[in-house]
């Protein structure tokens, strides 16, 4: 037996075990896609696939379900959060990899990574009890009062200044995705060859000109991939958004008012879902979220491969 284990048999058993484990992982992923699809099938059947996607009504009482408000909420919150987070996270990456002295760069890098390590519920907790009152009293109410006096047309756009709503959720979301955008950008910037920078310095460029003309163009693949990964994070972020966004799905959304995302509606309604159709609709929303994050992740992959310059990426 021992001899056979040290011959072909042992290797066969070993690789069979590894293939079983690896195959199990693939099976789980496939099963997940399938279960979300078939779990939501009832909703897709009842309203039609596109009917469900573009359905503007989500009403538990009349049994009318459409994912459109949540799709819109997800896309708006993620896009705005990304727009807010982009420049600061790029700045942090540049500070870490280019400007700061080594020790300071390490401290900043550690702190930025810490942002990713904090749990989502902690952001939510802080958001509810610190950010929301701040936003309500210092931003929303003054703006609302101002618009009431000077530009009543704006009031509908701004919505109720309660603090809980789109604005607070987006602010926290922006903060949460910074580390994802920043760390890929940082890595890409570090991969820029020394010679490129030195050539630019030799031409008499200032430090900023080196960053602007050499470092950023060279690192653009990593920077964009980071942006898209951050976007993927934002799309699926659940707890903090659920706690802050107010969970209203009445389109159109207003800036301060309540809204909802795909992840937040699942988190909010799933345990209390009544009847098969609501459950199926929530699973269908989950399936759409699955598709959306799939597309975004593949896009990130593609961009990273397409836009990276020279070596440094396989």
């Amino acid at each position, binding site marked *: 037996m021992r001899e056979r*284990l040290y011959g072909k048999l*042992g290797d066969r058993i*070993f*690789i069979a075990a*590894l*293939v079983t*484990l*690896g195959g*199990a*992982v*693939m099976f*789980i*992923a496939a099963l*997940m896609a399938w*279960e*979300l699809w078939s*779990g939501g099938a009832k909703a897709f059947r009842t309203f039609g696939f596109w009917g469900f996607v573009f359905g503007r009504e989500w009403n538990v009482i009349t049994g009318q379900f459409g994912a459109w408000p949540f799709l819109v909420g997800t896309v708006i919150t993620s896009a705005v959060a990304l727009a807010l987070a982009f420049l*600061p996270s790029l*700045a*942090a990456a540049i*500070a870490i990899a280019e400007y700061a002295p080594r020790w300071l760069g390490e401290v*900043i890098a550690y*702190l*930025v990574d*810490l*942002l990713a*390590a*904090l*749990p*989502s*519920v*902690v952001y*939510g*907790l*802080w958001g*509810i*009890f*610190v950010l929301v009152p701040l936003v309500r009293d210092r931003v929303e109410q003054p703006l609302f009062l101002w618009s009431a006096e000077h530009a009543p047309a704006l009031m509908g756009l701004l919505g109720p200044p309660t603090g809980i709503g789109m604005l607070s959720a987006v602010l926290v979301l922006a*903060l949460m995705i910074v580390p994802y955008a920043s760390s890929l950008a940082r890595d890409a910037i570090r991969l820029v060859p020394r010679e490129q920078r030195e050539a630019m310095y030799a031409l008499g460029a*200032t*430090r*900023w000109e080196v960053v602007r003309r050499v470092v950023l163009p060279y690192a653009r693949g990593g920077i964009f991939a980071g942006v898209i990964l951050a976007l*993927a994070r934002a799309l*699926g*972020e659940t*707890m903090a958004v659920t*706690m802050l966004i107010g969970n209203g799905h009445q389109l159109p959304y207003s800036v301060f008012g309540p809204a909802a995302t795909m*992840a937040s509606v699942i*988190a909010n309604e*799933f*345990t209390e879902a009544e009847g098969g159709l609501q459950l199926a609709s*929530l*699973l269908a929303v*989950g399936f759409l*979220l699955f598709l959306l*994050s*799939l597309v975004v*992740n593949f896009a*990130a*992959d593609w961009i990273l491969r397409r836009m990276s310059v020279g070596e440094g990426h396989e």
Partner: protein
Amino acid sequence: MNLRRRYLRDRLMVGLVYLGTSVVLLPLLLIIGYVFVKGVGALNWDFFTKPPAPPGEGGGGMLPAIVGTFIIDLMALAMGGLLGLGGGVLMAEYPEHPLNRPLRMVANVLGGIPAILMGLFAFVVVVLPMGGFSAFSGSVALAILMIPIIMRSTEEVLKLLPWELREAGLALGLPRWRVTLSLILPAAKGGIVTGLLLALARAAGEAAPLLFTAFGNQFLSFDPLGPMDSLPLKIYVYAISPYEDWIQQAWGAALLLALMLMLTNFIARRAMRRR
């Protein structure tokens, strides 16, 4: 552009870069500060040793949630670790294997999927067939969350080892499985442990996959087939509750959870360095 304006611009950009950085770091420091200041007051002996009290009564603690966090996360680590290590070893040690390409793709896909969908999945495949919320289903959800992280880190660590090491083993007449188990894995131990701990820390902070799997439980429970509490869940439930003493305890739980995650991260990085 004359030289002076270029220098001025250079200075300005330094300022802007640091300004942008502080826009990121200031809220982080605020969060840490608030969690620490507000949380410290809630931490006392009762917090660690008592089950939760009804709202308004005061007192009570987080014992069920603390115990539950450990049970759920360790079960998840056992499952996710096994699958993740298997996949990672396959990808690193058998680069010619045809399963590798789809496996890598699947790992990327799983890594990019929102955590709440793991919860939905575990609900459909575990909670529904078993007829009730359970700690086990929560562990399944978290395990799926861990798998891609562990796979990726295992593969990376193993690929760092020189091929000469494997060749040396093979030259001694060892079969491949023995080379992998007795040479490669021990040599990469530190890095593998780091990957496992980072995955654990990532999953332990998640509440979303547990909402409709582990569900939460007011009472101390060791039954993996029944509902169980967990710190992130408790923070969520207490934070959105209207009771002052519950909110106070939410801050305490947030501090405890953040400290536990930071400690795990710290140990993970130490394990990597000590290799």
